[in-house]
């Protein structure tokens, strides 16, 4: 907690109180609603809380042991990792590629940036419902296909297709953000270096490979970590695009957490899953940052 600072010389009376008044409300609210819940998640994961009882029973590591041989969670973890890794690759390849294409301050480029970015301002829930209406069995695309005498493409009704579709929609909806972030990084690439390389007769590809990309190092790290962390908690889109189907094959960990907690009233078990997700997210972010650091250093030597 913040204590009022000791009155310093040449300070006006009442400044200490004013300082407290300015800092305390935000600090208290943040502590109660964000820091305490993190600790509570740990505590609740050791109980059998059902969401109603005031005094949940302490069950020790039982929830964590249940996690280890929970086939649903194993499947959801694989789906989540696949979504996170493939999605991160897609977001960053497209993000960097398009950033290079729309770099520069022409009117056309501004328009392109807006169009690439707009899906991000729609809620993931709406994006999912929209794409499921377009790609569903009786959706717009399959209507065209069948009109032309083709077979229905099981975009959302076949487990493999549905997972691929989900990743594609996530990339469609999100890569505009990466474009904007990479554009910010491109502002920092020294122009004189690029000029010098061009004068020395380097091809476009060589300039990109040896000048632009190394200079973008930190920006690539931020983008990869941000994409990973965001994709690991994919939830809204699963609800609206596939509802976890077919037969639970596209459930992500976040989807499972909320399902177990609020549908099956197993909030203790859900908390254990949350703790696991938080740890895995933190570990992945840390490992990626470390690996990238090493890469960045290698470039500079």
């Amino acid at each position, binding site marked *: 907690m*913040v204590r009022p600072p000791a009155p310093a010389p040449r300070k*006006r009376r*009442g400044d200490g109180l*004013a*300082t407290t*008044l*300015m*800092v305390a*409300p*935000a*600090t208290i*609210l*943040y502590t109660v*609603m*964000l820091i305490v*819940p*993190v600790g*509570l998640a740990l505590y*609740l994961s050791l109980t059998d809380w059902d*969401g109603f009882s005031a005094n949940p029973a302490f069950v020790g590591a039982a929830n964590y042991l249940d996690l280890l041989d929970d086939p649903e969670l194993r499947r959801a973890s694989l789906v989540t990792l696949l979504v996170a890794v493939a999605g991160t690759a897609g977001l960053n390849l497209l993000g960097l590629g*398009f950033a290079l294409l729309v770099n520069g301050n022409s009117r056309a480029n501004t328009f*392109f*940036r807006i*169009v690439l*970015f707009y899906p991000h*301002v*729609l*809620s*993931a829930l*709406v994006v999912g419902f*929209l794409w499921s*209406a*377009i790609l569903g069995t*009786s*959706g*717009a695309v399959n*209507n065209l296909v069948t009109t032309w005498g083709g077979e229905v493409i099981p975009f959302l009704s076949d487990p493999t297709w549905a997972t691929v579709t989900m990743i594609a929609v996530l990339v469609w909806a999100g890569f505009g*953000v990466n474009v*904007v*972030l990479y*554009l*910010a990084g491109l502002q920092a690439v020294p122009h004189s270096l690029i000029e010098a390389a061009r004068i020395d007769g380097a091809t476009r590809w060589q300039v990109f490979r040896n000048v632009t990309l190394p200079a973008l190092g930190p920006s690539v790290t*931020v983008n990869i970590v*941000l994409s990973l*962390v965001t994709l*690991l*908690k994919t*939830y*809204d889109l699963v609800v*609206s695009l596939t*509802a976890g189907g077919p037969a639970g094959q596209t459930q992500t960990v*976040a989807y499972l957490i*909320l399902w177990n*907690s*609020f549908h099956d009233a197993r*909030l203790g078990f859900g908390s254990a899953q*949350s703790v696991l*997700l*938080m740890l895995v*997210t933190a570990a992945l972010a840390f490992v990626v940052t470390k690996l990238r650091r090493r890469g960045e250093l290698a470039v500079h030597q």
Partner: protein
Amino acid sequence: MTRKTFLWATVAFMLIPLYVLTVNAFKGQQDILSNPFGLGGLTLEPLGRALTNPNFNVFKGYAITLLFVVAVNVLSVGLAAPAAYVIARSPKRRFRALMLFFLAGTFIPGQVLVIPVVYVLKTLGLMGTIRGFVLFETTLTLPFSIFLYAGYIATVPAVLDQAAAVDGAGRLRTFWQIVFPLMRPAVATMVILNTFSVWNDFVNPQIILGPGSGLYTVTTGVYAAVSQYSTDYTVVFPTLLLAIAPLLVFFVFMQRHIISGLTAGATKG
């Protein structure tokens, strides 16, 4: 394929879903099924029915969501700005520690906190209430707001504060009358970002307000209206269009701020 052709092809690909959504919001089920991309048989009837859907009162949804957006923004600015000011202007180690304390919050994914937050809200008697929801939603905005505001205040010359103090203004008055008006760009960016995150949030209103409360935001309302009728396209398309129309208009007007705000956030740390 030249760069321009490729980009225009991409633009088409990005906008096709929006086109399908808009066109089909004005068609009957038969026309949607037989010709989803065509412009035949346009009618206002489905949109009219979406507006009077018993499962989801769109205007009430707009009103409630707007109320949340305004309440969260006012609270967020009111709490984060003064705290950021103290943090930015105090050389004391205590306040530098406080900055790190708030920064830690940017790494906590809000979504996985919903279970313990339910516990906290139940304990405080705020579960299922507008107050509880607004307080939690505001909390989620604090870490990044304080970070952004403190960074911005650091660029405001401290001479201004000292001059105000010499003229006899207390700390609170110095901040609200001298420094706060200068923070307009940072506050504008944050308000826009918060508006989107509150408007689009689905998990928190769904869980904290719950279907039982009768309080539907735009997202939870869309879920209630669309999820069971996902093959009745005369419900799906008009409802989705109504859900995103205000936001898209807002985005087109505010895009510069949004894109620059994101950039400011990206280069943090």
